[in-house]
């Protein structure tokens, strides 16, 4: 492919992508049904609100009923363990977001076929900030958050 064509092609796809994101911001739920599609818009979002809209189509969540097990102070921001559990019935999705990261969405998990409302992982944190967890149960979003102090940031070199 010659370089000029490639450039216009890339420009076109980027612009098209932005329009598509704007147009479907409220209608992204159907894409979540296709488990194979990685939700790029949600992961590229710069704010928790935008990430949640990309993931669940809404950022309105009620607090409570979620337990976050994570250190209050993490010495190494590159490896911060976090375990999320909830007693909410019919939890079908859990998302972990770090407010202080450039792209807040860390991971989201869709649970089905008898999986418990439980998810654990290790994540990177650039600096001290709030960690917000969102769980979807019966179509409603529930949330909890905790501040984790980071001594040495885990993003960059």
């Amino acid at each position, binding site marked *: 492919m010659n370089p000029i064509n490639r450039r216009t092609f890339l420009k076109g796809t980027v612009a098209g992508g932005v329009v598509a994101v704007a147009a479907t911001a409220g209608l992204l739920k159907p894409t979540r049904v296709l488990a194979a599609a*990685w939700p790029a818009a949600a992961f590229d979002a710069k704010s928790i609100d935008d990430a949640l809209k990309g993931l669940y189509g809404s950022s309105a969540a009620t607090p409570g009923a979620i337990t976050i097990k994570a250190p209050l102070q993490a010495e190494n921001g590159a490896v911060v363990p976090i375990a999320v559990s909830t007693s909410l019935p019919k939890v079908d999705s859990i998302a972990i977001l770090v407010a202080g990261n450039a792209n807040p969405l860390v991971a989201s998990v869709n649970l089905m076929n008898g*999986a*418990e409302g439980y998810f654990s992982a290790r994540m990177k944190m650039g600096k001290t900030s709030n960690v917000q967890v969102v769980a979807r149960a019966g179509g409603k979003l529930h949330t909890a958050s905790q501040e984790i102090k980071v001594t040495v940031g885990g993003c960059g070199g």
Partner: protein
Amino acid sequence: MNETKLKTRPKDGATEILVLVNHPMETGQRVDPKTKEKVPAHWIQNLSIELNGKTVADVDMGVAISKDPLIAVAVKSAKKGDKVKVSWSDNKGQKGGAETTVGA
């Protein structure tokens, strides 16, 4: 290269499924100390866990998941001898996975 480890253990009346993948999880922001150039992003995007052929958890990950991801979920209905399978794919199209049985 990308070794995938999978194990199960009892947890509060349920069965916890733990996955450990040997993967660099490069953010695309890190600068190589020798070449002074940015290391291209390379991370696992999707990891899915099956119990007896049925998907129980489908994890979408960003670059903020730590190097060598350790992921855990739990299922209540699992019995000893049930088959557990994990498979993952990253942004460069590499894939990996592992299988085990509950209680193994």
